């Protein structure tokens, strides 16, 4: 009897619509965030993360309404990431019904923002998203650095040191994405996940690279993650969240079923 590990489906939202084609066979509107969130809730998702990939301010207002609609019908934790740059952005999303916000670039350009946000709203609602790429060569000690702009721009910041710094500034959780693995379907960068998870007290969510159910268990058992985030494996109906949870439980992991 203890804390269950979590499965978090992640939805990309563009101008109020879920993109990257979620494909449920029996869903009326495949782009409707409320319908999809409800479906994942029914399947037993432990949380849901929305990543706002829109660029314009007008579309950001749309995201607020999406969060309001989902939060009034789906009663599990919601995280919103993408474009969170100011305390006002955080407040707007929390007031709309988000439980946590994921902060990424803003933390890099101004680490003090993480502390301000944690002081103002509590650590429990501030997730720092860390996009990392391996920079060490073969035969060298493992080293990962933070990248921005979808993995195109290097910052020279060491990922493990950065994670520890974010914890010190008050972050409640870390969402660690391997930019090497994202979209590859060959599994998490387990060494990266473990290096960070073992160096902080706060929970780590593993992200990037899930292609089959066994990858999820690996993230917990070998990556030492508290939660695993995945997108396409659930969106395309390959597996339901319940199947994924049963598979993880069969691997000896405590799950909410």
């Amino acid at each position, binding site marked *: 009897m*203890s804390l269950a590990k979590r499965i978090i489906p992640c939805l990309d939202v563009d101008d109020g619509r879920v993109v990257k084609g979620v494909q449920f066979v029996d869903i009326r509107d495949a782009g409707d965030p409320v319908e999809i969130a409800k479906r994942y809730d029914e399947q037993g998702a432990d949380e849901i993360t929305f990543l706002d990939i829109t660029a314009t301010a007008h579309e950001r207002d749309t995201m607020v309404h999406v969060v309001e609609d989902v939060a009034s019908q789906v009663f599990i934790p919601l995280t919103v990431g993408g474009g969170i740059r100011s305390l006002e952005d955080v407040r707007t999303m929390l007031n709309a019904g988000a439980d946590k916000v994921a902060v990424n670039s803003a933390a890099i350009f101004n680490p003090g923002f993480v502390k301000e946000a944690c002081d103002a709203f*509590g650590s429990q609602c501030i997730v720092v998203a860390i996009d990392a790429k391996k920079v060490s060569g073969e035969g060298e000690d493992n080293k990962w650095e933070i990248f921005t702009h979808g993995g195109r721009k290097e910052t020279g910041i060491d990922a493990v040191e950065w994670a520890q710094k974010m914890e010190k500034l008050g972050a409640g959780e870390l969402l660690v994405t391997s930019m090497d693995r994202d979209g590859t379907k060959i599994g998490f960068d387990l060494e990266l996940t473990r290096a960070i998870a073992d160096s902080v007290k706060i929970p780590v969510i593993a992200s990037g690279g899930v292609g089959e159910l066994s990858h999820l268990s690996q993230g917990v058992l070998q990556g030492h993650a508290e939660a695993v985030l995945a997108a396409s494996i659930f969106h395309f109906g390959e597996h339901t969240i319940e199947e994924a949870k049963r598979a993880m439980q069969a691997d000896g992991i405590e799950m909410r079923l």
Partner: protein
Amino acid sequence: MNQKLVAVVDYGMGNLRSVSKAAEHMADDQTRILITSHPEDIEKADSIIFPGQGAAKACMHALQETGMIHPIQKAAQEKPFFGICMGLQVLMSHSDENDGVDCLDIIKGEVKHFDLERNPELKVPHMGWNQIHQTNEHPLWYGIPQESRFYFVHSYFVEPQNPNYIAGETTHGQTFASALSHKNLFAIQAHPEKSAEHGLQLFKNFLQWNGQ
């Protein structure tokens, strides 16, 4: 005019929208859920939902600023009262958070941090879905199976002086009181508004509870 008024206490520290939405979702036509920061509404309401998030010191400060301390202390003695998360912790006498904060002293006892010296491997905050072992047969547990999982996010937990107040226990490195009940008061460390079906059932039970 048999309408029932349920006040959700707004003192600027919490995800009130989520809490009120969950309550509204489970309320019948005769029940009105009102988010309020007015002491007179607390006075008038038939029952009280007392949420909270963030740090103990900020919560106590916000309660003071809004003039809510006495109305809350009074309501907690006389009508169905439902504390959630920080709304449980500030009911206690004192919290160790923020170098020590005096709280509402409605329930005698302390609020303590998870013991990381005894459990160096422990992840804190305690974040995610954990089981509640129901230690009494309270009306608010109606329809909720023993050992059901609820969603938690916290780094501190309550330790009431009187163990008879404990309504539920949870284990994260150590076993702690995750729900308290005493007369017309029930309070829970987890977030029922984020705990799917069992959390919604808890709201339903509270809305139907006469406080006895």
